[in-house]
């Protein structure tokens, strides 16, 4: 048992053969749906390569720092803005102001948009009345109607929040509206056969089954909100991340511009993760029945 004959030792596959040999697979792993598999390490690699190219381009002096500052400059700038603020306002206040503008607009859009979208899904009257205005303004870029916002609502907080609100509102209404169609006819019939009223069917069947689409709509909506933030803070703002990026660009402070962009992206991404977490808790059944 302990002693192996030379013959059997020769048969043992070498390291190379073992690496090249195919692993056992589960059905569907090879001849399955295209696009399966974990992407975490590739994502890490992609970020690492981008950072490396960025560093290389600046370290070799191929591009002037005015156009592309070095990664370390961004970090240094971030620390200095964190400590001393930007244009006399502490960094965290910029963050807080922008975040509250986006979230204020987002909450407002949810409070008005979700009931409206659900009503549009369930009532042809509501759909007929509200479909044209929403479909009309939805594809227009916020920058195009920004001047109107300023003329109508001035340069204060109202027009800023309204601009973000409008960009969040449409996807939320449309998501809630199409979520209404998620319930299977059997689920609706089951409720009616127990003597449910129309209202009970909406409350106990339509609304819960619309939740996955509503959460997706909220995710898309908040994304649009961050996209519109910079446009909103073009209007006579003195605080906020969008303002920080815009005014830094006017003074050619490229490190602050890039830093601001990264901070906005980071906050938006963190919130996206939060909604995904909520999604797993609230609708763990999504796509499973």
């Amino acid at each position, binding site marked *: 048992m302990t002693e192996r004959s030379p013959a059997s030792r020769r048969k043992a596959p070498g390291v190379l053969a073992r690496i090249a040999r195919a692993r056992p697979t589960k059905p569907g792993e090879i001849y399955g749906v295209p696009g399966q598999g974990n992407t975490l390490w590739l994502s890490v690699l992609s970020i690492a390569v981008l950072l490396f190219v960025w560093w290389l381009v600046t370290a070799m002096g191929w591009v002037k720092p005015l156009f592309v500052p070095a990664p370390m400059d961004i970090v240094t700038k971030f620390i200095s803005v964190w400590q001393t603020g930007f244009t006399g306002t502490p960094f965290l206040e910029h963050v807080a102001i922008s975040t509250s503008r986006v979230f204020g607009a987002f909450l407002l859009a949810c409070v008005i948009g979700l009931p409206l979208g659900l009503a549009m899904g369930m009532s042809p009257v509501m759909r007929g009345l509200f479909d044209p205005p929403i479909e009309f303004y939805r594809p227009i870029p916020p920058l195009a109607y920004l001047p109107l916002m300023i003329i109508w609502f001035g340069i204060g907080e109202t027009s800023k929040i309204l601009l973000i609100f409008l960009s969040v509102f449409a996807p939320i209404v449309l998501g809630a509206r199409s979520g209404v169609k998620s319930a299977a006819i*059997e689920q609706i019939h089951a*409720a009616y056969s127990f003597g449910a009223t129309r209202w009970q069917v909406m409350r*106990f069947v339509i609304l819960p089954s619309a939740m996955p689409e509503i959460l997706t709509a909220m995710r898309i909506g908040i994304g649009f909100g961050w996209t519109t933030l910079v446009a909103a803070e073009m209007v006579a703002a003195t605080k906020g991340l969008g303002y920080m990026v815009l005014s830094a660009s006017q003074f050619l402070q490229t490190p602050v511009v890039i830093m601001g962009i990264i901070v906005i992206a980071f906050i938006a991404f963190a919130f996206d993760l939060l909604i995904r977490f909520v999604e797993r808790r609230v609708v763990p059944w999504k796509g499973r029945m």
Partner: protein
Amino acid sequence: MGLSIEDVSVVYPAADRRPPVDALSRINLTIDDEEFVVALGASGCGKSTLLNLIAGFLSPTSGRLVLDGQAVTGPGADRAVVFQKHALLPWLNVLDNVAFGLQVQGIGKSERHKIANQYLGMLGLDGFQGAPVYTLSGGMQQRVGIARALTCDPRLLLMDEPLGALDALTREKAQELILNIWNDTHKSVFFITHSVEEALFMGTKLVVMSPRPGRVTHVFDLPFSRQFLDGAPARRVKASREFIEIREEVLEIIFADEEAAA
């Protein structure tokens, strides 16, 4: 008493360059107390339309349905439906799914959970009260659906191919389970299936339907479910000479319909 279907026709109006469809033509049928009526027929014969009529999801174009002397005008808790699938609510656990009908009727939480637990026990689902329904197997989901239908103590249980999505073994077990429940609860049942063997084994009355227009062509009285409930093993009932003879007769009728349609 019971349900009587009196000269009922359903015509689906023309649409999309399609002529009007005679889904059901002059159906006369009664479902008496404690009767187990099975509808069988080629696809398009109107079985499901008939079930939707009884459930009240659909109104007849002409004729009427009468349940215990009252005309059927819409869905109601006296007729519970067991669907083929997709009818459970995945955001509720097993217990709340079973108690859903009682919740809709405004019965308090502890009371409805008590009743639901009783039926969960009857269907062998004890211990799964807190499980999410989407983690259950198809057979167990179907038992949850049956338990839910029973909680409101309906007069009539309507089953729309409830076992169609199950594998053969689970299906035979489920057939026996449904017969036992029917025997214990004394409900009337209207049951749709595509399987001739299932239809013969389970029904006390078999209604064979035929398409274009959907109509009842044959009615058989069946002894087999009684034989099973009196103690004969299911497989032996299904292998008896009498069973096989009727099975072939019914198959011939259905194949003739399919060929006429082709």
